[in-house]
């Protein structure tokens, strides 16, 4: 079949196309204005296509960001503090993240205030960890700042938290006392509503 030989032309034509480049170039050089116009046209089209591709990609990227429902669900939560006894830690969730609410004992408050902040891995004075006037209450995110495991509280007589994954230690107000965790357990935005209630997430930005 004659048809079957079409592919055989690949050689011929590609040689042509190479010739094309050499034969066309001189004629372009003879018409510098034409060349400029052509270059501009190609450039404008290429730029337009690039802008279009980027604009097309944007919705796909944006759709992977938290959606409106997830963002709206981050409304503050209220935690009733009355049932929490001295020394007790409760877990709550805000925006899907674990938060410890800990009621410190008087002994712990005294010890924590006495620590020399400057010598810590991530120096933070006592009142950077709890709100003044509410010395008893620690509210901190409950995931280790190393790789996100949940530290275990009061294990083996340690008065704070110890991470089961890589051995980081935190004191009673969540300050890191031994690595590999690089920083203290972060404090979420929260505010007291009187003495018996706390709103976690109050004042947070979406």
């Amino acid at each position, binding site marked *: 079949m004659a048809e079957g030989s079409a592919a055989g032309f690949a050689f011929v034509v590609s040689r042509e196309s190479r010739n*094309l480049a050499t034969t*066309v170039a001189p004629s372009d050089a003879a018409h510098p204005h034409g060349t400029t116009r*052509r270059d501009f*046209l*190609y450039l*404008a*089209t290429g730029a*337009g*296509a690039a*802008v*279009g591709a980027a*604009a097309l990609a944007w919705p796909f990227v944006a759709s992977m960001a938290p959606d*409106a*429902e997830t963002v*709206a*669900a981050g*409304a503050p939560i209220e935690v009733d503090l009355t*049932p929490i006894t001295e020394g007790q830690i409760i877990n709550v969730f805000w925006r899907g993240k674990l938060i410890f609410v800990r009621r410190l004992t008087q002994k712990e408050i005294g010890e924590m205030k006495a620590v020399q902040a400057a010598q810590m891995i991530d120096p933070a004075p006592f009142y950077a960890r709890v709100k003044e006037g509410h010395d008893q209450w620690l509210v901190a995110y409950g995931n280790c700042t190393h790789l996100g495991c949940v530290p275990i509280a009061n294990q083996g007589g340690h008065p704070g938290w110890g991470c089961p994954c890589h051995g980081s230690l935190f004191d009673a107000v969540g300050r890191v006392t031994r690595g590999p965790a690089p920083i203290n357990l972060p404090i979420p935005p929260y505010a007291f509503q009187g003495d018996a209630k706390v709103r976690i997430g109050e004042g947070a930005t979406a």
Partner: protein
Amino acid sequence: MTTPKRGIEGMMRTRALVAGLAAAILAATAAYADEGGPTPPREKWTFSGVFGTFDQAQLQRGFQVYREVCSSCHSLHYVRFRNLAEEGGPHFSASQVKALAAEYKVKDGPNDQGEMFERPGRPADKWPSPFPNDQAAAAANGGKAPPDLSLMAKARTFSRGGLWFVIDWLPFVGYTEQGPDYLHALLNGYKDSPPEGFQVPEGGHYNEYYPGHIIAMPKPLSDGQVTYPKGANGQPVVPETVDQYSRDVTAFLMWTAEPHLLARKELGLRAIIFLLVLAGLLYYVKKKIWSDVGGETHGLQPELHKTG
């Protein structure tokens, strides 16, 4: 270009065949052109067409009608309080929506004791349904649950039949607001006395536009039923009539069905203009490139144009 004799004969035979087939079909289908019930009249909507937008004041009034009248039986399952504050919708202020949500009790839980409890609504909450489930809704309404209204304006669209579908999608001459037209017609379609000889069963109501004419829902709207906010002169800005209520609530339901309608059209116009410009540029690029080989051949049957 010359057509050989044989071709003409072939064409004539074909034409006769097509004409015969078409005639047979038209004759056969004429009897089925009208498929029961009057067609809802075509209304004017601010949101129709390529440049159509929602009228924010109308959506707010429509929401009021829904809230004061429809919401006692019909849920709005896919609407959250926060949606009411969104741009391109009724666009109430955030504080208005917060206050509105707080007026409703929302079931939440379980709490630490494992019990469900009620708390004031938050903007993130769903619009509360009048009934806890479909069965309860049916039991309270004579066996037929009032349908959810979130998507009604899109779910009740119908085709005009015939060959209208060929042009109905086109810009400016098309027509795709049959859904809202139906809702408006239905709300205005109640007749106190059905046509003679038409038996309306117990618990049914005669409606000109409802398929089969017997609708379970009693006439929901009457003139003056909803008090609209007053304008500067102390008079309502729009008449407080069934017709106006139904227009407003229909526009509101169009928004609940298609909350991103404005964003969609806005982005669409930009995208189309951009693509047209890009296509124009590409056309000239293509022309330049093809000029190297003597230009592109045009036409669907180039050889027929060139020979002779």
